[in-house]
């Protein structure tokens, strides 16, 4: 500290206990600012949920985009592969009947059962095409070198599948398994000795063409084909389910589309000053609704309408809460009624300006959501992108002041009976056994129609995070 002299001491003692009464309006402003500050802390807390909802939706869109891209790519490239197969076979045997190509044209899957069926079918075709009466050779009569060539290629395809190799490597030396090698190559020499020992000239020609054919392209095209087979192994075949869910979240009650003023005063609207019975010097201040919180509880039913598509609906009870500050109250006998908006002031009989207080506004709705979902991942863990609309029917609004002196009352003034909101979210599910699924569901709910019927257009956005428990019926 410094070392002031007598002059400074005189100044210090003059101001030591000096006081000056502050303007009462300062406290109102302080109180309002403190309430807003508390609200902003709440906003920071719900920011986490907002970010989580936004991130998960972005993630789901990315996954969906990649999935759709892959699916489209596979479809296109499977067509190329099938065309290549057909072209090769037609070149091998231009006069070959379509019925003889039913195996080659058929889409080959990697399922062991299907491969077995395919093998059996192939062999039975071989027998029928070249009946073996002596049991020595199944290909003595009627063996056509062209058909033999096609069959050889088919068998090589089978050998390739069994070895997990691509079509392109079927001709390579990568077929290491002895049994498969026998199946792939030995069959030509043992089961089709005629073909092995007497290769027609056309086969030479075909081989020349095959050598000149760019197998590299086919090889690349075949890779996603295996991917497509793997993706079809869906864990869940459940078609119908029923579930219970609970959501919580936050929203900005003003919808971000109204004046940025945090409070209104009588000058903002035509107020009958005679309504005020108080002789208080304070000016009436009513803060905007803030601190929006929402809790939804409901049940839903869903059905899978296509391998990747679902629809679901249900019924939900929605409780939304907001707070605002006011220093205006309606005197009703010995109790007070909170005045929280313009309508309250214009309709009230006996108004009084009192110390600022906090008002709790509670809105209740019954909602019927209808959502469609696209299944991105359907395994033990599931991921579904959901979108739809929700029909929200307003039930009641409850207004209550913070202290016991206030009388709670219901109101429906200024609020639309029906609100339409859009829903967009994702559902991260986890299968518990065959019949149960638990899911976390971040979602954004955007009001499409205005929630109020007053002059201000309020379309709040709700950021919600929910939990669902589903029972899978079949």
């Amino acid at each position, binding site marked *: *500290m*410094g070392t002031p*002299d*007598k002059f*400074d001491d*005189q100044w210090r003692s003059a*101001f030591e206990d000096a006081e*000056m009464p502050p303007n009462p309006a300062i406290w109102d402003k302080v*109180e309002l600012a403190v309430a807003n500050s508390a609200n902003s802390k709440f906003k920071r807390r719900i920011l986490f949920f907002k970010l989580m909802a936004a991130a998960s939706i972005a993630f789901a869109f990315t996954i969906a985009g990649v999935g759709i891209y892959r699916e489209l790519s596979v479809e296109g490239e499977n067509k190329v592969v099938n065309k290549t197969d057909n072209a090769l076979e037609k070149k091998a045997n231009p006069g070959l009947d379509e019925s003889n190509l039913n195996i080659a044209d058929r889409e080959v899957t990697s399922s062991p059962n299907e491969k077995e069926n395919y093998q059996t079918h192939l062999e039975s075709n071989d027998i029928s095409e070249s009946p073996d009466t002596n049991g020595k050779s199944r290909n003595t009569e009627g063996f056509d070198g062209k058909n033999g060539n096609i069959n050889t290629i088919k068998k090589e395809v089978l050998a390739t599948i069994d070895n997990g190799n691509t079509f392109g490597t079927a001709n390579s030396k990568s077929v290491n398994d002895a049994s498969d090698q026998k199946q792939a190559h030995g069959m030509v020499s043992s089961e089709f000795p005629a073909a092995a020992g007497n290769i027609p000239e056309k086969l030479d020609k075909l081989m020349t063409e095959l050598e000149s054919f760019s197998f590299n392209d086919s090889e690349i095209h075949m890779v996603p084909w295996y991917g497509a087979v793997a993706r079809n192994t869906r864990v869940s075949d459940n078609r119908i389910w029923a579930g219970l869910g609970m959501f919580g979240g936050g929203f900005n009650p003003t919808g971000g589309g109204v004046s940025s003023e945090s409070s209104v005063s009588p000058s903002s609207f035509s107020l009958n000053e005679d309504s005020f019975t108080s002789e208080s010097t304070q000016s009436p201040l009513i803060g905007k609704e803030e601190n929006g919180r929402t809790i939804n509880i409901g049940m839903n039913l869903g059905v899978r309408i296509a391998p990747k598509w679902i629809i679901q609906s249900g019924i939900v009870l929605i409780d939304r809460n907001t707070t605002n500050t006011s220093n205006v109250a309606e005197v009703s006998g010995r109790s007070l009624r909170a005045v929280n908006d313009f309508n309250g002031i214009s309709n009230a009989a006996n108004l009084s300006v009192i110390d*600022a207080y906090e008002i709790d506004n509670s809105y209740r709705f019954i909602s019927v959501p209808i959502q469609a979902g696209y299944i991105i991942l359907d395994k033990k863990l599931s991921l579904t992108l959901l979108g739809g609309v929700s029909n929200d029917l307003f039930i009641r609004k409850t207004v209550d002041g913070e202290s016991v002196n206030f009388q709670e009352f219901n109101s429906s003034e200024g609020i639309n009976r029906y609100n339409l909101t859009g829903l967009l979210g994702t559902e991260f599910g986890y299968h518990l056994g065959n019949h149960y699924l638990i899911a976390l569901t971040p979602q954004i709910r955007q009001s499409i129609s205005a929630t109020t019927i007053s002059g201000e257009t309020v379309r709040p956005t709700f950021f919600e995070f929910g939990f669902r428990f589903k029972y899978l019926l079949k």
Partner: protein
Amino acid sequence: MSSEKALISGCKEGDRKYQRELYDLYAPKMLMVCMRYSKSDQEAEDILQESFIKIFDHIKNFKEESRLIYWIKRIVVNTALNHGRRKLYMFPMVDVNELDQSQDNEVSLSTLQLKELLKMIQDLPSGCQIIFNLYAIEGYNHNEIADMLEISVGTSKSQYSRARQLLREMIEKEELTYGNAR
């Protein structure tokens, strides 16, 4: 009236009743502090409002190692200095020659009212006003003032000296007016 401990505890919980009580208790004293650092009533009220918002926002961090009034006053003075810094940015302080302070001892404030003294402080140039308040009334030394305002110690001393000279002139002028009136 609640005890200081109860007030602090209530305010830490965000209880509006205790906040109001604390405001009623300290706002009149703090408004006078704000008046000393400002040029007008409106500016002082703005500082007071901003200060109490900060007080209620940060009272959770109050460790109760010192008395509440000192903690509150520090917040009010810091808020006032932040307001003052804006003015100092517009009108930066410059060094002036230090004056002989021996003549000041003869000056007496006893004949003057608080309102007149306040008016004299408010009429000082911004730099002089802030430094006189900090040095003569709050009791900070020039090194501390230099750190707080990010100025040199010499500037602090010269501004203080200038403030004394101006105040002495104002007091003499006031006494002369009183003398003529009598």
